[in-house]
């Protein structure tokens, strides 16, 4: 069968202020093919597709559909030309049913007949192999079901060209397989599918051709059958990249943090964490896998002291065995109490008793470094605020998911952001900016942060550089436990590898690292063990050196039905 052109883009250029998002991009899409648009974050993939979907208008260039030049100025124009886009962030009304969402905004002759809509929706679903109940409300749906609604919505409007923006980012491996089957059936039906992605294995699996964008430029379009991961990466990044992630063996692992039976309800009273128990060891990376919103964020926030727990314990093992006692985080009274419990020994391993000694003499002895801990210190962090946790001397670092909304202050420069953790130091009411500035300069140098200066608001930096600043700060406090939530989300390949490298270095230094990730390939390559969560509960812990993606994928959805019904 001869290939028929569906869509052509010629010399498409788009600028945002001084940023050139797309630079004279030419792209052809045929009928009955799946075209992958591949590129790193920020290379202009989504911008390009938004111009076909009527969200943006190109500064220069032409769009041709079936050989005729068209003008697409709004999403409605796009629909008139049978183009439909499924955005990364779904645009659905939660309170409406699937069918109601699908007909929303469709202008048809005749009365609004929901029954007929339901029949048509069911017809489309059956034709392409979707599973969807048209009468189900969106708020009851899983992410994958919502995506199905979005796809059917554009099919319902008769789209022949479908654009999917990062459709697999939120799906489990099984759901991805199902989605790809649907896409293949649509292709056989003569539809043109464009999928925007940065995941190489998916490109190779599902697409017929791949268009590679880099920094707004169209680098090449190649037939998928004639290429491989290494070649695609090289075109994407512009140079050869080693895609292997190091995984050093854990050194002397010892339990550093224990979570026991932790449960949490959110502000609306919904159970978000159920009886979670696990432990993290020093010198290892514990991965946390799960569909977005399975309780990963709440779990890390609970450990960091940001959530009022319903029940459970968070036990921190401070590696103090045979280390000198200091007054840094302890009062004299507390030291005396601990001595009475026989918690210390002296350099010759004899028990320490302060009986009959004056406070002055005790102070002198402790400050000389002659009083040592017998065992590691055990501390319960339950219901402690972040400040109290720090005052206990627990070095817990946390790289939150929301970098600019929680980890950093967007309007402040790097120096002021370094102070967030440490500004309280010293008794004077005034700030000391000298040390934070030195730290800022060190992080800029060490992690190669691209910024005009230490006082440029971090909001103006690129995603990768923002993350380097945040991770750099959290590592600078020589943590014993380092928690990172989606630390490579939105980062380009090089920045991602910088972050993996930093986490590995922490692991080698004996830090217990918790890594919440979404890319199972990365989790399997980087972590030592992987904890899988679903519906706020732990559904399994696996050895990352043995486990397979499919295995983890099953755990990510295991007991999901039961979990949902319990809520009602």
């Amino acid at each position, binding site marked *: 069968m001869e290939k028929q052109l569906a869509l052509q883009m010629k010399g498409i250029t788009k*600028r945002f202020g001084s940023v*050139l998002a797309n630079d004279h991009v030419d792209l052809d899409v045929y009928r009955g093919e799946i075209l992958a648009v591949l590129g790193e974050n920020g290379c202009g993939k989504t911008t390009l597709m938004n111009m076909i979907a009527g969200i943006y*208008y190109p500064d220069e260039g032409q769009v041709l559909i079936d050989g005729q030049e068209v*003008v697409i100025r709004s999403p409605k124009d796009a629909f008139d030309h049978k183009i439909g886009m499924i955005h990364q962030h779904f645009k659905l009304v939660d309170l409406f049913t699937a069918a109601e969402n699908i007909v929303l905004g469709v202008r048809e002759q005749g009365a609004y007949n929901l029954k007929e809509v339901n029949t048509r929706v069911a017809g489309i679903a059956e034709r392409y192999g979707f599973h969807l109940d048209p009468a189900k409300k969106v708020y009851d749906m899983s992410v994958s079901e919502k995506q199905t609604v979005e796809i059917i919505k554009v099919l319902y409007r008769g789209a022949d060209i479908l654009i999917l923006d990062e459709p697999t980012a939120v799906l489990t491996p099984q759901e991805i397989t199902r989605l790809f089957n649907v896409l293949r059936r649509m292709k056989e039906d003569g539809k043109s599918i464009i999928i925007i992605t940065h995941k190489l294995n998916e490109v190779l699996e599902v697409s017929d051709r791949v268009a590679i964008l880099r920094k707004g430029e169209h680098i090449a379009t190649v037939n998928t059958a004639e290429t491989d991961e290494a070649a695609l990466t090289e075109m994407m990044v512009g140079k050869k990249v080693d895609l292997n992630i190091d995984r050093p063996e854990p050194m002397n692992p010892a339990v550093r943090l224990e979570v026991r039976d932790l449960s949490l309800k959110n502000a609306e009273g919904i159970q978000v964490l159920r009886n979670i128990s696990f432990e993290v060891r020093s010198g290892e990376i514990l991965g946390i896998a799960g569909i977005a919103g399975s309780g990963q964020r709440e779990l890390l926030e609970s450990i960091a002291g940001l959530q009022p727990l319903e029940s459970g314990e968070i036990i921190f093992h401070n590696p103090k065995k045979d280390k000198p006692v200091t007054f840094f985080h302890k009062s004299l009274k507390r030291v005396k109490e601990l001595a009475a419990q026989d918690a210390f020994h002296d350099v010759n391993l004899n028990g320490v008793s302060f009986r009959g000694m004056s406070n002055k003499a005790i102070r002198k002895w402790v400050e000389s470094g002659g009083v040592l801990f017998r065992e590691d210190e055990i501390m319960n962090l339950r219901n402690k605020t972040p400040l109290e946790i720090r005052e206990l001397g627990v070095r817990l670092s946390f790289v*939150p998911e929301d970098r600019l909304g*929680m980890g950093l*202050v967007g309007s402040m420069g790097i120096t002021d952001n370094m102070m967030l953790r440490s*500004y309280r130091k010293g008794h004077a*009411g005034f*700030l000391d900016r000298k040390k934070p500035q030195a730290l800022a300069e060190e992080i800029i140098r060490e992690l190669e942060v691209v910024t005009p200066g230490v006082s440029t608001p971090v909001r103006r930096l690129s995603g990768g550089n923002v993350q380097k600043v945040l991770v750099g700060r959290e590592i600078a406090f020589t943590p014993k436990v380092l928690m990172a939530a989606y630390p490579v989300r939105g980062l380009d390949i090089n920045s991602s590898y910088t972050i993996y490298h930093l986490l590995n270095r922490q692991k080698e230094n004996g830090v217990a690292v918790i890594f919440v990730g979404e890319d199972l390939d990365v989790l399997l390559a980087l972590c030592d063990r992987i904890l899988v969560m679903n519906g706020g509960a732990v559904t399994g812990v696996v050895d990352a050196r043995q486990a397979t993606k499919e295995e983890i994928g099953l755990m990510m959805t295991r007991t999901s039905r039961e979990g949902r019904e319990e809520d009602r």
Partner: protein
Amino acid sequence: MSEKRHAEAREPLVHLSKRASIAPPMAWAIRLIALVLGLVACGLVAFLLVDKLREHPERVGDFYYCFIRGAFGTSRKFWKFLRSLAVLLCIALALTPAFRMRFWNTGGEGQTLVGVLGAIAVDFYLGGKIPEWLLLLLMLAASLLSGAVWGVIPAIFKAKWNTNETLFTLMMNYVATYLVSYFLVIWIPNGSSSLSKLQNGKLPALGNDYLLIILIVLALTIGLHIYLNYTKHGYEISVVGESVRTAQYVGITVGKVIIRTMILSGMLCGLAGYLIAAGMDQTVTTESAGGQGFTAIMVSWLGKFNPLAMILTAGLIQVLHQGAAQISQDFDVSGAMPSMVVGIILFFIIGSEFFINYEIHFRGHGARAGKEAVK
């Protein structure tokens, strides 16, 4: 077909884009242009409404000269200008810590008014019975305390129950006004309509009646600049203002910061009230704050919450006010005309912020503008 028509009209005539940043000289040029356009617009409106100007168009120069004469015409006017500027600036400074925290304190008017009331109450009951210096100190304490109480009430509600501070502080203004009315009923002897000037509790003159107030506010400006930018408290205010979640993440107790900052904000409003009571009026009316609590919001906002820049914005607004008063005197106009003059110019100045934040592209020029920007 409509295809062709489409192709011609494909690019919208104008479209807007947010600027990533703007060079300060450019921003100042835009503000200056706005000021000039505002003055021109004022002239046009005045030409329509002011009889004397219409009959004698040659006096247009005089009209504009009023803005200079109003504030700088005589040495007395100049001192008065500086003192009014100082009081307005004092209230604006008071609001600024709250604004930096994104706590929209619209209650400066009421907080200042209770400050006046507190001082006058002490003066009314103790004036003449205790030494003057002690009276002045007690009046100061009463002002600061009243202002702080007025400020902290909405803050407590915000911290505990997350109530809307804008409405709450605004409503507190009315409570303050009626509180003053209540006390006036008690204090004023039958037959009189207002409380006559009290004999005691007057700030000492430093050379003249104006200088002391000016110096106090100048010191406060510098002090607040340091407090906001170089102290731990100021840093906490900025963090809470930018993101409550970041503040929680680093262990800042957000409620505590809100309450502490609003005590300060209310207290400084109270100080402004003290300056009005002990430094100028020696009496209280429901109009003692005279709307300055609202004008101060604009001073603070136009000054980008920067205490030093607010000296300029307060000065500008005071020049406009005194200029407008001069116009009404020289051109025999009364009523709303002077307020209109001030309003028109402020409209242009505030409007200019739009052009500082956004860039406008015209059809066909977009591509070129983009290329220039790349260079």
